[in-house]
Protein backbone atom coordinates (compact mmCIF):
# COMPACT_ATOMS: atom_id res chain seq x y z
CA UNK A 1 0.00 0.00 0.00
CA UNK A 2 2.91 2.32 0.80
CA UNK A 3 4.45 1.70 -2.61
CA UNK A 4 1.11 2.39 -4.26
CA UNK A 5 0.69 5.68 -2.40
CA UNK A 6 4.22 6.76 -3.33
CA UNK A 7 3.60 5.93 -6.99
CA UNK A 8 0.31 7.83 -6.95
CA UNK A 9 1.89 10.94 -5.41
CA UNK A 10 4.79 10.79 -7.88
CA UNK A 11 2.44 10.61 -10.86
CA UNK A 12 0.36 13.49 -9.50
CA UNK A 13 3.47 15.61 -8.95
CA UNK A 14 4.68 14.89 -12.49
CA UNK A 15 1.33 15.81 -14.00
CA UNK A 16 1.08 19.01 -12.00
CA UNK A 17 4.59 20.01 -13.13
CA UNK A 18 3.57 19.46 -16.74
CA UNK A 19 0.81 22.06 -16.44
CA UNK A 20 3.10 24.86 -15.13
CA UNK A 21 2.91 27.98 -17.31
CA UNK A 22 3.69 31.68 -17.01
CA UNK A 23 1.30 33.61 -14.76
CA UNK A 24 0.78 37.24 -13.75
CA UNK A 25 3.64 38.40 -11.52
CA UNK A 26 6.21 36.06 -13.05
CA UNK A 27 9.21 37.21 -15.05
CA UNK A 28 8.77 36.96 -18.81
CA UNK A 29 11.08 34.27 -20.23
CA UNK A 30 13.58 35.24 -22.90
CA UNK A 31 11.77 34.91 -26.22
CA UNK A 32 15.06 34.49 -28.07
CA UNK A 33 15.54 31.09 -26.42
CA UNK A 34 11.98 29.98 -27.24
CA UNK A 35 12.12 31.32 -30.80
CA UNK A 36 15.67 30.58 -32.02
CA UNK A 37 16.52 32.39 -35.23
CA UNK A 38 13.56 34.77 -35.09
CA UNK A 39 14.21 38.47 -35.69
CA UNK A 40 12.99 39.91 -32.41
CA UNK A 41 13.05 43.62 -31.52
CA UNK A 42 14.88 44.96 -28.45
CA UNK A 43 12.60 44.77 -25.44
CA UNK A 44 14.86 45.88 -22.57
CA UNK A 45 13.14 48.62 -20.58
CA UNK A 46 10.06 48.51 -22.83
CA UNK A 47 6.46 47.58 -22.23
CA UNK A 48 5.96 44.42 -24.30
CA UNK A 49 2.76 42.90 -25.65
CA UNK A 50 3.23 39.30 -26.77
CA UNK A 51 0.30 37.93 -28.73
CA UNK A 52 -0.26 34.33 -29.88
CA UNK A 53 -2.19 34.15 -33.15
CA UNK A 54 -2.88 31.87 -36.11
CA UNK A 55 -4.12 32.43 -39.65
CA UNK A 56 -7.06 30.06 -39.01
CA UNK A 57 -8.23 31.97 -35.94
CA UNK A 58 -10.94 34.54 -36.77
CA UNK A 59 -10.68 36.56 -33.52
CA UNK A 60 -6.90 36.78 -34.02
CA UNK A 61 -7.48 38.39 -37.40
CA UNK A 62 -9.99 40.77 -35.80
CA UNK A 63 -7.41 41.78 -33.21
CA UNK A 64 -4.75 42.89 -35.72
CA UNK A 65 -6.26 46.33 -36.53
CA UNK A 66 -6.42 46.96 -32.76
CA UNK A 67 -2.75 46.06 -32.32
CA UNK A 68 -1.85 48.27 -35.29
CA UNK A 69 -3.62 51.22 -33.65
CA UNK A 70 -1.92 50.52 -30.33
CA UNK A 71 1.45 50.30 -32.07
CA UNK A 72 0.94 53.60 -33.88
CA UNK A 73 -0.19 55.33 -30.70
CA UNK A 74 2.28 53.94 -28.17
CA UNK A 75 5.39 52.59 -29.95
CA UNK A 76 7.06 56.00 -29.64
CA UNK A 77 6.44 55.95 -25.90
CA UNK A 78 8.01 52.54 -25.33
CA UNK A 79 5.54 49.85 -26.40
CA UNK A 80 6.75 46.84 -28.37
CA UNK A 81 4.23 44.41 -29.85
CA UNK A 82 5.34 40.93 -30.90
CA UNK A 83 2.86 38.65 -32.65
CA UNK A 84 3.81 34.97 -32.44
CA UNK A 85 2.17 32.94 -35.19
CA UNK A 86 1.54 29.26 -34.45
CA UNK A 87 0.49 27.99 -37.88
CA UNK A 88 1.76 24.52 -38.75
CA UNK A 89 2.34 25.56 -42.35
CA UNK A 90 4.98 28.33 -42.76
CA UNK A 91 3.42 29.28 -46.12
CA UNK A 92 0.10 30.07 -44.45
CA UNK A 93 1.88 32.16 -41.83
CA UNK A 94 3.78 34.10 -44.48
CA UNK A 95 0.70 34.61 -46.66
CA UNK A 96 -1.35 35.86 -43.73
CA UNK A 97 1.43 38.20 -42.55
CA UNK A 98 1.88 39.56 -46.07
CA UNK A 99 -1.85 40.16 -46.45
CA UNK A 100 -2.33 41.90 -43.11
CA UNK A 101 0.75 44.17 -43.47
CA UNK A 102 0.89 45.07 -39.79
CA UNK A 103 3.42 47.64 -38.52
CA UNK A 104 4.53 45.51 -35.53
CA UNK A 105 6.79 42.46 -35.43
CA UNK A 106 5.44 39.06 -36.47
CA UNK A 107 7.44 35.89 -35.88
CA UNK A 108 6.68 32.23 -36.59
CA UNK A 109 6.76 29.61 -33.86
CA UNK A 110 7.09 26.74 -36.30
CA UNK A 111 8.04 24.14 -33.69
CA UNK A 112 5.38 25.34 -31.19
CA UNK A 113 8.18 25.70 -28.67
CA UNK A 114 6.98 29.09 -27.38
CA UNK A 115 3.32 28.05 -27.57
CA UNK A 116 4.00 24.89 -25.58
CA UNK A 117 5.86 26.90 -22.94
CA UNK A 118 3.17 29.58 -22.56
CA UNK A 119 0.36 27.06 -23.11
CA UNK A 120 -2.28 29.71 -23.96
CA UNK A 121 -5.74 28.59 -22.87
CA UNK A 122 -7.41 29.89 -26.03
CA UNK A 123 -6.57 31.63 -29.28
CA UNK A 124 -5.73 34.47 -29.29
CA UNK A 125 -3.96 34.95 -25.99
CA UNK A 126 -1.69 37.85 -25.09
CA UNK A 127 0.75 38.72 -22.33
CA UNK A 128 1.41 42.31 -21.30
CA UNK A 129 4.83 42.79 -19.72
CA UNK A 130 6.06 45.86 -17.81
CA UNK A 131 9.38 47.67 -18.25
CA UNK A 132 11.03 45.39 -15.69
CA UNK A 133 10.09 42.28 -17.62
CA UNK A 134 7.30 41.09 -15.32
CA UNK A 135 4.03 39.76 -16.76
CA UNK A 136 1.31 42.14 -15.53
CA UNK A 137 -1.77 41.19 -17.55
CA UNK A 138 -2.91 38.13 -19.50
CA UNK A 139 -5.72 38.41 -22.04
CA UNK A 140 -7.55 35.39 -23.44
CA UNK A 141 -9.63 35.87 -26.55
CA UNK A 142 -10.42 39.12 -28.32
CA UNK A 143 -13.78 40.82 -27.78
CA UNK A 144 -13.47 43.89 -30.00
CA UNK A 145 -13.73 47.39 -28.53
CA UNK A 146 -14.03 46.06 -24.98
CA UNK A 147 -10.65 44.32 -25.17
CA UNK A 148 -9.08 47.33 -26.94
CA UNK A 149 -10.21 49.60 -24.10
CA UNK A 150 -8.64 47.24 -21.58
CA UNK A 151 -5.36 47.13 -23.55
CA UNK A 152 -5.29 50.94 -23.78
CA UNK A 153 -5.86 51.41 -20.06
CA UNK A 154 -3.27 48.79 -19.08
CA UNK A 155 -0.62 49.97 -21.57
CA UNK A 156 -0.98 53.58 -20.42
CA UNK A 157 -0.65 52.45 -16.82
CA UNK A 158 2.50 50.42 -17.54
CA UNK A 159 4.08 53.13 -19.72
CA UNK A 160 3.58 55.68 -16.93
CA UNK A 161 5.60 53.60 -14.46
Amino acid sequence: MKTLTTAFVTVLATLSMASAKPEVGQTMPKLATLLPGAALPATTGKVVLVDFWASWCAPCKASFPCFSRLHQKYSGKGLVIIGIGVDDDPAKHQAFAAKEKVPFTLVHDAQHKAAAFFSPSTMPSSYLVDRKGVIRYIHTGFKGAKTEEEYTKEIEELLAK
Partner: protein
Amino acid sequence: MNPSPFLALALLGGLFSSCSPALVRVQPYERGNLAGPLLSQDRDPLQKAMTEHAYFSREASFGGGGVGGGGCGCN
Protein backbone atom coordinates in the same frame (compact mmCIF):
# COMPACT_ATOMS: atom_id res chain seq x y z
CA MET B 1 -11.10 -9.32 0.94
CA ASN B 2 -8.08 -7.13 0.32
CA PRO B 3 -9.31 -3.67 -0.74
CA SER B 4 -5.93 -2.50 -2.15
CA PRO B 5 -6.45 -3.57 -5.79
CA PHE B 6 -9.86 -1.91 -5.86
CA LEU B 7 -8.49 1.24 -4.26
CA ALA B 8 -5.64 1.27 -6.76
CA LEU B 9 -8.04 0.88 -9.65
CA ALA B 10 -10.25 3.67 -8.33
CA LEU B 11 -7.28 6.02 -7.89
CA LEU B 12 -5.89 5.29 -11.35
CA GLY B 13 -9.35 5.58 -12.87
CA GLY B 14 -9.80 9.00 -11.33
CA LEU B 15 -6.32 10.09 -12.34
CA PHE B 16 -6.57 9.03 -15.95
CA SER B 17 -10.21 9.86 -16.55
CA SER B 18 -11.12 12.57 -19.04
CA CYS B 19 -11.46 14.95 -16.07
CA SER B 20 -7.69 15.15 -15.69
CA PRO B 21 -6.38 18.37 -17.25
CA ALA B 22 -2.89 16.96 -17.64
CA LEU B 23 -3.77 14.28 -20.17
CA VAL B 24 -2.69 14.69 -23.78
CA ARG B 25 -5.30 16.67 -25.62
CA VAL B 26 -5.43 19.01 -28.60
CA GLN B 27 -4.04 22.33 -27.45
CA PRO B 28 -5.69 25.61 -28.55
CA TYR B 29 -2.71 26.40 -30.79
CA GLU B 30 -2.97 23.01 -32.53
CA ARG B 31 -6.54 23.39 -33.76
CA GLY B 32 -5.82 24.58 -37.28
CA ASN B 33 -7.42 21.53 -38.87
CA LEU B 34 -10.53 21.89 -36.70
CA ALA B 35 -10.97 25.46 -37.95
CA GLY B 36 -11.47 24.28 -41.54
CA PRO B 37 -14.61 25.41 -43.34
CA LEU B 38 -15.85 21.80 -43.60
CA LEU B 39 -16.12 21.68 -39.81
CA SER B 40 -17.94 24.99 -39.58
CA GLN B 41 -21.52 24.70 -38.34
CA ASP B 42 -22.83 27.32 -40.73
CA ARG B 43 -21.19 26.25 -43.99
CA ASP B 44 -24.70 25.67 -45.37
CA PRO B 45 -27.12 28.30 -43.94
CA LEU B 46 -30.23 26.42 -45.13
CA GLN B 47 -29.17 23.14 -43.56
CA LYS B 48 -28.23 24.96 -40.37
CA ALA B 49 -31.64 26.65 -40.19
CA MET B 50 -33.43 23.32 -40.77
CA THR B 51 -31.30 21.52 -38.19
CA GLU B 52 -31.95 24.22 -35.62
CA HIS B 53 -35.65 24.06 -36.40
CA ALA B 54 -35.63 20.30 -35.90
CA TYR B 55 -33.85 20.61 -32.56
CA PHE B 56 -36.20 23.38 -31.47
CA SER B 57 -39.43 21.69 -32.48
CA ARG B 58 -38.62 18.06 -31.63
CA GLU B 59 -36.21 18.28 -28.76
CA ALA B 60 -37.19 21.63 -27.26
CA SER B 61 -33.57 22.73 -27.33
CA PHE B 62 -32.31 25.86 -29.00
CA GLY B 63 -29.14 27.93 -29.10
CA GLY B 64 -25.71 27.05 -27.82
CA GLY B 65 -24.29 26.78 -31.33
CA GLY B 66 -22.84 30.25 -31.54
CA VAL B 67 -19.20 29.56 -30.79
CA GLY B 68 -16.99 31.97 -32.72
CA GLY B 69 -14.12 30.91 -34.94
CA GLY B 70 -15.54 27.75 -36.51
CA GLY B 71 -14.34 24.49 -35.02
CA CYS B 72 -11.17 25.83 -33.44
CA GLY B 73 -12.92 26.89 -30.24
CA CYS B 74 -11.29 30.32 -30.45
CA ASN B 75 -12.18 33.18 -28.10
